[in-house]
């Protein structure tokens, strides 16, 4: 029983319907304090966004999510950049990529048989493609499901005489099966390519993709949908900032202005508290926290603590600001 999505003023959040991508996406929304609940049973493709009344979840395949974002049937969605670039003809006018989510990493690459030891770069491949028809009576065949991505990348490298063999599964097996000469495929570790006696060209990485939170610019953005998006994006931004920042506390007697300035310029550490007792609190990027703590010790600190926040809410939310800039409001 499929209900058509009426143009009521609800925010539709599209999330992957299966596999590790779904697990990661659900974990992401749950961390952000807006858990997606799938209706009764795993087969129901609609669900709720807990705590956000004006929003509902839709569980779909990644490629379907991309299509719905492009034509405005979903407001927000989790999908790979590879699909956004491949399946949407004019991404800049249809969608806004809000933020990378840190999972679903994969590269779209050009891979050729390992036996082609004379081919290591796209320039080599262009040369081979140029002479292929004269030698074999047909153009070079490229197996891929990334038809548009391939066409753009090959055109950039001056390769024109080739044929795409559309392939929706087991692309990497096409050269061994004799249905194609080279492939453009998505890979995480390159192991599958290796197992099929293929290698990635040195400059053959077309796109480093990962899962992204993507907003539709074509969806009906009513007041309630906007409000719901603002709530969700504010929680996502608060969780993201909390996850990526640390609060560093220490006590330093007579901390000079020069020292505080150096903390800011060398480590990006922002001062949050500076009490007369000499107690100091900074916040800074998680990655630089250890070095900063070491540095504080060299400046005479006896104890330095680092703590993680649950959420860092801010009046001005960069994700919502970006979306608002595109949809108005």
């Amino acid at each position, binding site marked *: 029983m499929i209900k058509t999505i009426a143009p009521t003023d609800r925010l539709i959040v599209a999330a992957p319907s299966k596999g590790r991508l779904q697990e990661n996406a659900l974990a992401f929304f749950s961390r952000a304090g807006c858990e997606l609940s799938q209706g009764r049973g795993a087969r129901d493709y609609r669900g709720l966004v807990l705590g956000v009344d004006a929003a509902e979840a839709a569980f779909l395949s990644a490629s379907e999510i991309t299509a719905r974002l492009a034509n405005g049937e979903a407001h927000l969605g989790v999908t790979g950049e590879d699909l956004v670039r491949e*399946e949407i003809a004019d991404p800049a006018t249809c969608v806004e990529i809000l933020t990378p989510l840190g999972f679903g990493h994969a590269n779209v690459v050009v891979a050729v048989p390992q*036996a082609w030891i004379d081919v290591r*770069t796209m*320039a080599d491949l*262009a*040369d081979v493609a*140029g002479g292929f028809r004269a030698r074999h009576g047909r153009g070079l065949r490229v197996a891929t499901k990334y038809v548009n991505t391939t066409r753009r990348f090959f055109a950039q490298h001056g390769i024109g005489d080739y044929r795409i063999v559309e392939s929706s599964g087991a692309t990497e097996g096409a050269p061994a099966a004799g249905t194609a000469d080279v492939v453009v495929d998505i890979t995480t570790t390159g192991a599958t390519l290796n197992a099929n006696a293929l290698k990635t060209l040195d*400059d053959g990485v077309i796109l480093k993709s990962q899962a992204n939170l993507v907003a539709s610019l074509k969806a009906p953005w009513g007041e309630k949908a906007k409000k719901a998006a603002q709530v969700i994006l504010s929680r996502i931004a608060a969780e993201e900032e909390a996850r990526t920042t640390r609060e560093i506390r220490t006590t330093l007697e007579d901390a000079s202005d020069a020292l505080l300035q150096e903390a800011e310029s060398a480590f990006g550490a922002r001062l949050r508290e500076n009490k007369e007792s000499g107690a100091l609190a900074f916040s800074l990027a998680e990655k630089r926290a250890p070095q900063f703590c070491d540095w504080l010790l060299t400046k005479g600190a006896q104890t330095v603590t680092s703590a993680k926040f649950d959420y860092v809410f801010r009046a001005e939310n960069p994700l919502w600001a970006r979306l608002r800039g595109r949809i108005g409001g």
Partner: protein
Amino acid sequence: MRRPLPLAKERRKAGAGNVKQGMDRAKIQARLEAALAKFAAEGFERYEPALLQPAAVFLDRLGEDFRGRLYLTGEGGGSDLCLRPEYTIPISLGYIAAGAGAAPAAFSYGGPIFRADGGEATQTGIESFGRPDRTVADAEILGVSLDAAMAAGAPPLAVHLGDAGLLRAFFDRLELAPAWRRRLETGLARGGALDAILAPPARGNGAAGAGVLAALEKVDAAGAKRLVEDLLAIAGISAVGGRSASEVAERFLEQAALQEGGIGDDKRNLIERFFAVEGAPDAAADELRKLAGEAGIDLGAALDEVDARTNFLAARGVALEDAVFSTRFPHSIDYYSGVMFEARPKGAGLDSPPLLSGGRYDTLLKTLGSTQDVPAVGAALYVDRLGDAA
């Protein structure tokens, strides 16, 4: 199944074209009929291929780049069919299917073609197959299509000529290393600057590649093949894909040859002079004859053909005082095998779109399935553009 998404920008363009077409439809129809009447009077038989065409043949012949310009469709949302994007290939296929071998036949056509980057456009033209008297047929096709353009209300036109056969003859006589010839042909087809094409190739390969190239400089083709086969065997790499070990070895040898000090000053100089030739057809042919004589290469047969064609054009009364022959005619020579031509309103720059274009494509029909070579030459008129220019 992938769902095709709307191409927003292209749709707008096509939409705008349709509005204009609505206003001008009667005018365009009148122009089309005038051109077709001229073709009929000259003995060309009307032939209209289907609007819906198999997509594969266009992608095979015109390259995968062309995919973005096709309106693709198919049963159940497939993409194996397309709206007719041009006439030459469907008419050639029709001629082959009729099974007359290489018997002479002359067709005219006229109607809509569809390109995703331009929407619907009206094209008319002629194709001539199987004429052994090539230069006469060349002159007739260009002459008749110019007459038809005038009948359809075109302003006075200036003709731009080139010759893919002359280019091929020149490359043959230069006796270039295969890798250099490929570089030149693909570079010129893409409209690249001669300086960049002739620059010594920058190698992406690291020291390992350089080592193999150095080793291969001392061996012949058979030795190179053994070396490559041994390398693959030692590394335990199984051969997959459409290239054999000897093909890989051959390309290594070519690359080694490329490394040896570029294309050479004499050849470079000759190539630069050849591609600088542009002018009135007679004067250009004279200049090329002189150039070939000095360089000691034989372009006699190819240049005789250029001259014969010019004479037949003059005999037909084609105005040649505004014609320009250029060795860098802006076309990929892959499709064409002989004369190439375009016509624009007098005084219009070569970067403006032509009102008429065409050429000889003797090798195309065999690649489309003909069992024998069929001499073929054709011309197309862009009927919608006639109104803009007039």
